[in-house]
Every structure is written in C-alpha cells, then in structure tokens.
C-alpha cells in the first residue's frame, strides 16, 4: 500500500476531510506506517500521548480501567482514528487501545503534526473549522440534553 492509498484513507477522516491532497500526502509521508499483531497494545490509559493512529485495516478494542479490571467500551474498525486528542493538547490517554485483529495503522506524531500546522496556515484554518463544527455539535447535543432534563423536571 503506497502513500497515495494512505492519502485516500486520510481523506475519509472528518478532521482531515477538507485538507488539500498535497498536504495529506505530506502528513502521510511524515507519518510512520505501523503494523500491530492481534492483542498488541497501541497505548495505555494514563500514558502521555504523543501520537494518533489512523486504522488502515483491522480492528481495535478500546477499554478503560475499572475496579474489576479493564472493561471494553468500544471497538473501532478501518478509517477511524484513535488518540487524536493528544495531537492537539497535552493530556494523558483516556483509554487503553488494543489491536483486536492484526492491525495496519498510520502513526501521526504530534511533533510532525504541529510542524505542519505551524507553517501551513490554511491547514490550521481547516482544523479550526473542523473543531468549531465539533464544538457546535457538542453544544447542540448539550442543549438538547439540557432540554430533555428540563422536560423531565430534573433541573
């Protein structure tokens, strides 16, 4: 699978959907292609995050720690990205991600991602737009939830 296929896959990620092909190519080129065996751990809850993983093929299980051991809360397949929040801000991983099948990923490192943003203002704008859209969605969901709560007379 060459870099061009990776670009196509990157394009399907909402965060990157509006970005120029050549920029995505650069993102792919500066990223590392990594395969994981079934059961291998991509990162653990509480680790300091320094990269995000785009799943090219395979499936991951997302689990969080509980008093009774790790509990799988979700599973994601190809064309999904995990750990992307650590690209944007310093925070420990909020969940453990494990390969649930043999996994092919593109590892995007924070340093490289920031390097791109620093010098490519349009790309920064695109990311900002995407984040604004997400924020807007979250706000909408939040107010809907409020409305529901109010309707239920709980607030």
């Amino acid at each position, binding site marked *: 699978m060459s*870099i061009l296929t990776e670009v196509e896959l990157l394009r399907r990620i909402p965060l990157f959907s509006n970005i120029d092909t050549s920029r995505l190519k650069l993102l792919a080129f500066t990223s590392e292609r990594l395969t994981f065996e079934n059961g291998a751990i991509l990162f653990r809850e509480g680790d300091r995050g320094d990269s995000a993983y785009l799943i090219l093929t395979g499936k991951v299980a997302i689990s969080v720690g509980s008093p009774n051991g790790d509990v799988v809360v979700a599973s994601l397949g190809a064309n999904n990205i995990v750990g992307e929040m650590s690209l944007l801000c310093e925070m420990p991983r909020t969940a453990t991600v494990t390969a649930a099948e043999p996994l092919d990923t593109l590892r995007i490192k924070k340093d490289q991602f920031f390097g791109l943003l620093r010098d490519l203002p349009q790309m920064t704008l695109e990311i900002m737009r995407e984040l604004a859209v997400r924020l807007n969605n979250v706000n909408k969901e939040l107010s809907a939830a409020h409305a529901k709560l109010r309707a239920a007379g709980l607030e």
Partner: protein
Amino acid sequence: MATTHQSLYGYIWKHSRRDQLVILSIALAAQPFYFLTLTLPKLIINGPIQGEGFATPTATQNFMRLVVGLPEWLGSQWVLLEGFALERVPYLFALSFAFLALVGFNGFLKYLINTMKGRLGERLLRRLRYDLIDRVLRFPPSHLRKSKQSEIASMVKDEVEPLGGFSGDAVVWPVFLAGQALTALIFILVQSFWLGLVSAVVVLGQAIIIPRLRRPILQLGKMRQLQARELAGRVGEIVDGGADIRVHGTSNWERADIVRRLGRIFDIRFELYQRKYFVKSLNNFMAQMTPFIFYAAGGYFVITGQLDVGQLVAVIVAYKDLPGPIKELIDWDLQRQDVQIKYDQVMDQFQPDGMTPPEHHEASKEPRSPLAAIELKNVTAIDDAGFTLLDDVDLALPLNQTVAVTGPGGCGKEALGQLFARQISIKTGTVKAGDDDFFALSEATASRCIAYAGPESYFFPVNLTENLLYGLKQSPRDGVASERSRREAIRAGNPAFDAEADWLDYEALGTRDPKIILERLVDVLTMVDLESDVYQFGLQARLNPKVSAEAADRIVEARLALHERLAAPDAVTLVERFDPETYNRNASIAENILFGASIDPIMQPHNLTSLPHFQRVVAEEGLEQHLVAMGQSIAETMLELFRDFPPDHPFFDEFSFIPSSELPAYQQIMKRAKTSGLTYPDRAKLSVLPLRYIEARHRLGLITPDIRERLLATRRTFAETLPANLKPLISFYEEGKYNAAASIQDNILMGRVSYGVAQANERVNVLIREVLDKLDVRDLIIEAGLAFHAGVGGKRLTTGQRQKLGLARALIKDPQLLVVNGALANLDDQQKTNIVDRVLKHRAGKATIWVLTKDDLADRFDRVLVFEHGRLAADRQQTLREAAQ
C-alpha cells in the same frame, strides 16, 4: 611564585660537562690544521707558482720539513723532520694535494663535532622536557586548576626546542668561532701589522655596536613568545569550548579576539623584521668595509713594494674567513640571549609553590602496608579565593566503617572528600594516618590504600578496560626495552621505566588469570550499573575475526540461532534478512546494490555515486534511465510536499530527499523535463535521489517488480566485476560467514529490522539478548564493549557513564579506603540508591567514605557526619540494625 632557578648555563654545564669538554678538545685540536689550510695557499703561490726558491730548473725544496724555532742558546732551531726534496712541479702538486687533504680532514672534524653537538643537544632537550613534565606531575592541585593545558603543551613542545639546538653550541661554538676568528686575525697581523690592526678595529666595532642594536630585538622576541603562547592557550579554549561557543552564538566574538591577537603578533613580528634586517644590513656593510681598505691600502703597499702580492692575496683569503666567524659569533650571542630569555620564562612557569617533593613519587616495590586509622585535628582549609572550606574539624576515622558525609551543598563535605584524595591542602591543624603525617605519605602508599571517585573523573583516550585498570599501574616495571634505549634514557636523566612492560598490579588484583580479571571487571560494572551500556557498546563494536576467529564463529552461531527464533510466528515480521537473491525492502537502494559492509568511506552507500565502478555497472545494466525516472518521481513529490516550507524548517533535515537550498534547482530540472528535455547534469542530479530511498519507510511505491529484478542484477554485476583494488575494501553479506566490516549486532542480525512493525527494535534487542545468553557469548560481547574507546577526556561517554566509570575505576582497586565524593551526582535517584546499596554490600567491613549529594541515603551507613558551614555539626554512629533498614 618565582623561586630562583638554575641559570641556563648552569643547567647546560651541569648536565653536559663531559661531552662539552670532549667536543671542545676536538675543536681545539682542529685549529692547527685550520691554520695550515690558511698558510698553504701562500706557500703555493709564492713557491712553485711564482718560483721563489726555485732559481734553477733543478732546484728542490724539502716537502714536509718540520722545524721548531728555539732560542739562540739552544741552537736556534730544532729540525723535527727533514722531509724530502722535491722539484718545482712535483712540489706544486705535493702542496696542492696536501691542501686538499687538509680541507678534507677539516671537513671530517667538523662533521664529527656537529654530530656530537647534535647528540648532546638532543639529550639535553630530552632531559629538560622530561624535567618540565615531571614538574607538571608534581604541581599542586590548585596550580593545575589554573594552568592552561595548551600553554603548557606549547612550552614543553615548542618553546624549549631552541634550547636543544643551542646547548650543543653553548660552549664549543663560541670557542671554535673565536678560535677561527683569532687565527684569521693573527694570520693577517703576521702578514701585515697595519692591515691586521684595521681588521681588528672593524671587528671590534661590529662586536660592540651590533649587540647593542639587537637588544630591543630580544625584547620583541620575548613579547612574541608570550603572545604566541597565549594564542596557543586561546586555540585550546576554542577547541574545548567549541560546543558552548556554538550554543551561545559567540563565534564572531571569538573571531574578534583571535583577529586582535593575530594583529598584535603581526605588529611585533613586523617590527622585529624591520629591526633585524636593519642590523643585518649594517653588519654586512661593516664587514665589507675591511676589503675596501685591503684593496685600497694593501694595493698601495704592493705597488710601493712594502708588501708582496702573495701576502696580500693571503691576507684577503684569510679575511674572507674572518667576517664569517665574527658574524656567526654575533648571531650566536643573539641566540644565547634569546634562549636564555625563553629558558627563564619557561622555568618561571614551572616553579609553583607547594610542588610535591620528588621523593613522594619515588617508585616503591615494597609490599602494600595498610594505613592505620586517620585522624584530623583542628583542621582548617581554605580555597584559592580565601573562602573557608573546613573550619576546625576534629575527626577520628577507624578504617573499618562505612561513613556517610552529608550537609547542604558547600558545607565542607566536598572539601572533606577532596582532603582524603589530597586534592586540597590544609591551612592549619594536622591529618595523621597512624603516626605518619597523612600529607607526607608517598604517592605509592596513598594511592594503593585509598581510591577516590570525584564528580568529574578524567578518562584517557584509551579503551574502557585500560581506563578501568588505570589505577592499578603504579609500580614501575622495567624489562622489555632494549639495553640501548635504557642506557640512553638514563644518560638524559630520564628514569628507566618501560611503558611497553606490563604495569598491571596483579598482586592488588590477586590474580593473573585474564578470565578472572574480566569477571571482576564485569562485577564492578554491574555494581555501578554500567554493564548494560558496555554490552551495547559491544554489540556496536566490530570484531577482528583474524584475531578472534573463535569469537567470530560464535557470533555466526548466534546468527543462526536468532534466525531460527525469528522464524517463529510471533517474530516472523520483525527482521528482513539479507538474502543475496532477494531485494531488501527495509534497506535503501544503495545498500541493496552494495550488499555489503565497509569501513572505507568511499564504499559507503551515500558515497556510491562518486565511485567509478558503480557508474560503470549502472550504465552496463541499463539502470541509469530507471534511476532518473525514480529521481523524477521523488523530486516531483518533494517539490509538491515541501515547496511552502521556510528553508530552515526541521522537516527538510528529517524527511526531504532534497535540501531546501537545492529545491529551486530541482524545480528548474523538473520544468526542463516537461519542456526542453533533461540535460546530462540534470540526469546525474536526478539519479542520485533514489539511492537513499527505502521502500518500506518512504512508501512511494517506486520498487516495481521490474525495477527489483534490475537492482538485483546490478547487485550481482557490482560484486562480480569489482576491481581488484576495491575488493579488500568491502565485505559482502554472506550467509554463514562473519562480516568483519559490520558490527557484532549487524552480524547477528544479518538483515534489517522492519520498518512499520510496532516496537520492532525493542523486541529484536530482547531476542538478541536471549540468544546470546543462551549461547553463553555474553563475555565475548562485554569484552568487545570494554574495547570501546573512551574518546578524549572520555567525551564519547555520557556524563552519567563517566561518573559510573569513575566509581568503577576506584572499586576495581579494592582499596583499604574508598572515598566517593559526589560521584553519582548526575544519576537519577533510583539508580543512585541501587548503586549505593550494591557498593555498600560489596564493601561490608571495609572503610568507605561517601559524600552524599542528597541526605536520604545516609541511613544505610554505619556512621553519619553532618557538616554545616565547614564545621562538623553532628557525628552519629548508627547501629547495624538501623543501617540495615
């Protein structure tokens, strides 16, 4: 600082008296022969040539008649040799050949004298240099800290050099030259009193005026020497501080300083030249005055018949020999003063107060005598700046406990550590080892009984083993050097130590078995947490399979074992092995073609394009157009990806195939590719790009099956047609064979760790370690790691590694008293704790003084000393139970 030192002449005379006298007597014995060579021309011209004494054709003269003039009452003369009678022509030839023989004989004597002088000079220089370095070895620590090493080196190496040349001439040369000048002068005087007198007056004038004019030149010479020495010091600083200069961006400031210094040296030297050549021309002019008088006045005397032509010619010939010696005599005097100044200046720098007396360094072969308890009484110490380090400290240390010394930084605990290493001297009070003065212990005794590890240990640019065993090379050995070199060393006042001999103190090690010594080294390295580092060095090292064929076999065995292990399903993707028949996707195109390792720079993958053989093979295999096409594809991608980045963006270094400065050029090339077509240089520039391309890493999809086959064919042709002169430079990768040019790790791997497999490197390292442990080749790797070169001042090691190595070097001596003074300051707490625990366990029951950087480890020791403001504030014994916690 300036205690008076011996004068230069005193030094020369003291150490070369005998040789000087021998040379002098030969020089004196040469004088009559020299006089004869001057007389003969006159005899030849006046006698056989002009016919004096050959009134008739058959007249004869006695050749080799020797007559000694005696007073009248003894018969007026005594004929030593009657000689034999010769006619005019044979007499001419006899005299001429005698002249030739004399010239030859004089030449031989000169040769003899010069060789002897040279030898004498070299011996004296050797002695002086040794003396100077001996002094450096005895410098007090405070003076060493102030000395600039490059200035000292410049003095020992360059500044004393003229002394060697001069000392051979110190006595003989002036006597010889004065003798020559006097002989010539007397000869002229005998020929003609007035002409002689004129010469004498001119010579005297030269001898008085010239040295006067030269005095300022000497002053300038002195300044020049100081400036040059300081320049050497500055150059040393620039090299030592190179990294900091770059970090602070002060390279132009340094340049300015150098410019100023060079300017000063230029000014001094230029003035020196002006004065020197003025004096020289004046000297020449005065020397030419005399012939003028000879021609004018002498000619007049000949015309008026008061002097014969033969005499005048002889005078002129003799005079020809006069200015030479005189000039050289004056030069010699200049050199004498110059060398005297240099000597004084150098010696001044080598006489600091408080030098260790030589007898402390005397080699002792007596068995180690253990130290008795150490006792400090009212000890006060101050540093160079007058700051109090230790203030009235009383302390008794029986040498059987582990002692922690704690307190805030600068409280005196560091000074206490240094005191045990005799790195500082005390101002008042006494330090006793048993009944002896601690500071008067000989170096041999002190260093055998005490080992010291400070925060900054110096390491020599040798391998780790030698650095570790450095502290065990105290007792001089003699033996293997030739008798001649030993004798010569003694003649030059050097000790008869032999650096080629094995100096290792096996007695202290308690064994001569190299296996046990290695074991001990490994123990110590493990104790200080350095073993795994050394193991890594070992893996990165190259083995010389000629020297250690068995080791090479073991590594190949390990390779087979690893490959077997890598075949298991969980590891099958980790490594792509080197297979002569397969293209390696995890290696670059250049590496794939070369398919071997080399230690020669011209055979490195990145230099391949400049190798004519490579160019030829590429052309032959028709690979060139493909390389150009791949280059085009890479250039296109790079231009697309990087065109918007500022030139200093880190991406260029990390990811781009084309440096930012070359992007515009490639842009032009790509434009031409679409329009006018590529030129020859364009094609060359493009075909370089793909050589670094690694398919698995860069993922541009360039290696199509067709390209792969071509590259494999190129690999084969490259190896098969390799010219004979290149063959020894490369070792191709071969299954089952050790590759001498590759590191041990590469030999075990014989492949590349795959890009794109999560944690492949870590996992491969673990597998390699497992395999090596199973095969029991750990020692072999450690041995290779111990051969790691520490670099100048240990700079190839990290600060942490240096500190650990310093402690290991002290531990290997297994001393009666171990002093550790902030030696682990740069390590993290966990490491520090582990090391302290291991070392204390190892030294149970033996005296150890540990100056701790942080107090939290103190409870592990038998006794704790707490310092405050240079004073011993608390001294508490801990019970073993406490200490065990």
